[in-house]
């Protein structure tokens, strides 16, 4: 007995879960081309856009919580020097756990949930934010602080009016790194829970459908670049003195 191969090969290829290719049996999708615009157009509404919004949500929550923790820790470490080493060691420890593994390790405790992803993502923002905030606070020149003391400013006034504004460039630089890093790691998080832009990437890799992972990856990259660009604009708006100084220099 021999099986007929002809009719099988001639039947139109079906893209897993996404129906037949719009370009017909010989279109880009049927050939599994590197990037098929047809697929992107056809699945923006049901695949790409919802994942993009999920991704944004994951990122905003993680960076928000991470910033609150790192900011409090950095302020404390700025006053109590002993605190720096334990906290930076702790956050560096978290940072060195590979993301793929950390998410797996959290699963037995928090399950295949969003909480697992957020705990992991927050953990990864701490080191960057803590280091940058603390470096920023410490970069304030000694004579500036002395002048502030001499003017009779209290510790709180020095912090709010002198240290934080002068530390702002370093803090916002840290925030930018934290945001783009979180966007990046959130794609990896989809290895555990099918949320965010990582989901179509892993799905595309698993089903060997190139356009899906290439297009989603491009979207993830675009998201990171746009987020970074918006943060730069925000930084410029909030530090007009830096631009003025640059112009005179």
């Amino acid at each position, binding site marked *: 007995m021999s099986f007929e191969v002809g009719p099988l090969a001639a039947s139109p290829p079906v893209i897993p879960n996404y129906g037949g290719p719009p370009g017909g049996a010989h279109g880009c999708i049927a050939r599994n081309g590197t990037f098929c615009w047809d697929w992107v157009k056809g699945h923006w509404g049901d695949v790409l856009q919802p994942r993009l919004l999920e991704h944004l949500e994951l990122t905003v929550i993680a960076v928000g919580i991470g910033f609150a923790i790192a900011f409090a820790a950095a302020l404390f470490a700025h006053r109590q020097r002993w605190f720096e080493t334990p906290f930076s060691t702790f956050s560096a420890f978290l940072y060195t756990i590979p*993301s793929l593994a950390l998410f797996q390790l959290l699963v*037995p405790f928090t399950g295949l949930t969003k909480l697992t992803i957020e705990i992991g993502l927050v953990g990864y923002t701490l080191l960057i934010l803590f280091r940058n905030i603390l470096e920023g606070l410490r970069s304030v020149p000694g004579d500036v602080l002395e002048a502030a003391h001499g003017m009779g400013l209290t510790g709180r006034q020095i912090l709010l009016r002198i240290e934080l504004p002068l530390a702002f460039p370093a803090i916002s630089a840290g925030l930018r790194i934290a945001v783009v890093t979180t966007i990046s790691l959130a794609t*990896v998080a989809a290895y555990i829970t099918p949320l965010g832009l990582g989901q179509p990437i892993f799905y595309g*890799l698993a089903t060997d459908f190139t356009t899906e992972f290439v297009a989603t990856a491009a979207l993830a*990259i675009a998201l990171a670049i746009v987020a970074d660009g918006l943060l730069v604009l925000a930084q410029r708006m909030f530090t007009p003195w830096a631009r003025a100084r640059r112009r005179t220099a």
Partner: protein
Amino acid sequence: MISAFDTFKPHTFVDAFRFMADNPGLMWQKTAEHLQISGEAMGIALLIAIPLGVWLGHIHRGSFISINLANIGRALPSLAVIAIGLGIFGIGQTNVVFALVVLAFPLMLTNAYVAVDNIDPDVVESARGMGMRPHQILLRIELPLALPLIFAGIKTAAVFVVATATLGGIVGGGGLGDIIVNQASYFLKGVVAASIAVAALAFAANFAFALLQRVVTPRPLRKRLRAIEPDVSTGVAEPTTA
């Protein structure tokens, strides 16, 4: 994606070390692969990014390239770069090394540029007033003063690269990621064992560059260095301001 999960028990960590002891061949091979992939990426990034960043900072030019373009590079999610690389280069290590260089390069370039560019202009002017030539200013004034920030970039990049090389496991690039993405074969103890190895490698890389920083920093500046980054061995930081 993961099909089955181990239940996580306290002795999973003990099992992880037992896993290392039981599979020394596998662990060494994957660790060596991991180090090789990370080392290649760090080497390529260091050779290009540091000289370029320092030089651009010295001439105070190209802030667009060194900051904006580098930020675009830094913003690229590694998994996405690997995925696109897979579409271009196909399966293999080239893919992963390329993605790691893309990751490390901007971190180093931006830090090196900012470090040199932001040095107090008065200091540079004083040096010029003392009759120093531009290359003397670069080598004796700007570079030593910029070292802490340059090395901050290198150390961060090293930790990033070693940790991110794990993603290679997803696309069959080798390294410890091969174990981490294969919980079905190696169980959670194997995943933990490989993670410990990755973390140890990242710490070692960070430590190695910290040591290098200490060696290349001129002696008079080391005191200030210690004040910025407290010596873990003594745990005491000297105050930066009197």
